[in-house]
């Protein structure tokens, strides 16, 4: 084993041509592997192995304790043909994707436009709108339960007092609207993040183009529609990418607000995996759902990165 010495001039290769020196030279040329090793080991143990694991476990009927029974693709057949909760989780993921990403993009863009225009206290406003993004969804879930509560809740009481009776709704207990109430909280939490990304994007736009358009007499609407919005393409794409990934790992907020209920009406794939694996002790089936979630997440992300050219927040 070669010693990568921290001294300067350490590990310098000297002549000779036998197997030992060859492999020694290979190691020196590939010193980067030593730098990578801790990251690689963690990746293999906690990411790569788990991925193979769920593929394997998805083929078994297994409660996590007793002997597992091989059932082939039975779990997948059941999931796609005879599992209403799974179908609801897929439906809710679609709702969640579209009703979170687009509202928070438009709202975030509007806020960013105002908060880069030089109004007073714009930094404080930015901090205020971003604040929900750093608070645990566990905390937010409990707070919003009190806002939505039908008796003594904030919205219901405002409705009773002012006569705006439409505010009195069974927000979380009506299967028809519970998912939308949950999505609303998520939009509230993440709009500030979109805003911050658009602030960064707007500050990076080339000044010449914007002032040229202004000199040419383009109206504000025209400038936004034809110049600013298209030029922020990379921000839109990053937000969509992060939004899809965020949707697919939504757990804490739903778990705290509704636990996926009433009657699975707000079930998401992660809450369903948890429900199957732990309270219901069905590790094999949960792994099969996890495989489906994994395939959806990876294909959606690869599609966006390869075809649309999306990128992660920072760097390339």
């Amino acid at each position, binding site marked *: 084993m070669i010693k990568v010495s921290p001294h300067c001039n350490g590990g310098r290769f000297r002549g000779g041509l036998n197997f030992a020196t060859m492999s020694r030279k290979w190691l020196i*040329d590939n010193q980067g592997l030593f730098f990578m090793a801790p990251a690689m080991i963690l990746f293999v*143990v906690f990411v790569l192995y788990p*991925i193979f694991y769920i593929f394997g*476990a998805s083929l078994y009927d297994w409660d996590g304790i007793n002997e597992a029974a091989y059932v082939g693709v039975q779990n997948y057949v059941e999931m796609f043909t005879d599992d209403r909760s799974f179908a609801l989780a897929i439906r809710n993921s679609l709702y969640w994707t579209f009703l979170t990403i687009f509202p928070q993009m438009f709202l975030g863009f509007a806020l960013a436009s105002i908060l880069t*225009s*030089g*109004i007073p206290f714009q930094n404080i406003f930015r901090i205020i709108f971003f604040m929900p993004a750093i608070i*645990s969804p566990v905390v937010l879930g409990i707070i919003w339960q009190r806002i939505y509560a039908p008796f003594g809740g*904030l919205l219901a009481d405002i409705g009773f007092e002012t006569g705006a009776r439409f505010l009195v709704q069974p927000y979380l207990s009506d299967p028809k609207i519970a998912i939308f109430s949950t999505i609303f909280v998520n939009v509230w939490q993440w709009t500030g993040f979109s805003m911050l990304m658009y602030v960064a994007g707007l500050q990076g736009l080339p000044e010449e183009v914007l002032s040229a358009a202004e000199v040419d007499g383009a109206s504000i609407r025209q400038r936004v529609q034809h110049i600013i919005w298209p030029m922020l393409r990379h921000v839109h794409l990053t937000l969509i990418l992060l939004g899809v990934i965020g949707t697919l790992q939504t757990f804490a907020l739903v778990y705290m607000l509704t636990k996926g209920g009433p009657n699975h009406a707000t079930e998401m794939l992660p809450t369903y995996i948890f429900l199957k694996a732990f309270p219901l002790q069905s590790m094999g089936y949960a792994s099969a759902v996890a495989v489906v979630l994994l395939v959806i997440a990876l294909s959606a992300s690869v599609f966006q990165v390869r075809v649309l050219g999306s990128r992660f927040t*920072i760097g390339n």
Partner: protein
Amino acid sequence: MKAKKSRHPRSPRRLGKTLAFVFVTILALVWLVPIIMMLVVSLMPPDQRAPRFGGMLISGVSLKNYVTVFEDAEIVQHFINSMAVTVPSVFLVVAISSLAAFALARLKFFARDIWFYLLIMTLMLPIPTLVVPIFQINKALGLNDKYLGLILPYTALGVPFAIVILRSFFAGFLKEIEEAAILDGCTPFGIYWRIMMPVSWPAIAVVIIWQFMTSWNEFILALVTMNTNQVKPLTLVPLVYSGQFMMRPGPMFAILTLITLPVIVVYYLMQRFMVSGLTSGAVRG
């Protein structure tokens, strides 16, 4: 654009700006309602019955709920648990990801790009897909109910994002500095430790704040890994005491406030770095 506007204060513009300011102020107040509510309910006097408006109207201000929490709940123990998981994971992520990011940005080695893409793939992976296997790995290693059972997965899952940030930062260094150091006889580790790390604080700060917040707020892995109340981190505390404080929103919201305070403090102290970190990234995109 900003400067230009203020140089030509035409009156319709000024009117537009005033309207925008009023609009944003109202929206910001509405936006803050849930957070204000958290504070207000936590200050509710314990003898107040049936709070109305979700507890936004309280009959007085009292710190009694916080006293109750410190007396009846092991909040200090849970705080220590959260720190015992978060601090080592932040430290490990900085150490491990900076080494890897340095290699990926500055060194050539076998299968470099493949390793990079594999690591990046982790960013696209929903954590809930890994819950069952990580639970089983921890069980096999005897790490359930142990801090290490969360530290290791949090580190593994945090490293890829940190690598993305640090790699782009390291890649921006001038080649000449590195070549000069090599001529002076410096090893790659010397370049990493003596030249790159000391000047990389802006990027490292982003990594620290991000890893701190994700580890502090992480929920699903903590939920399945920590089953004994003694070792549960703060994020599980609302569940632990939801039965005990079911009919008493005051202490519960005091707990929520106590959970949230550290994150807000860390964010406030480091937000300058956070915004500039995101800015440089989104612009370079």
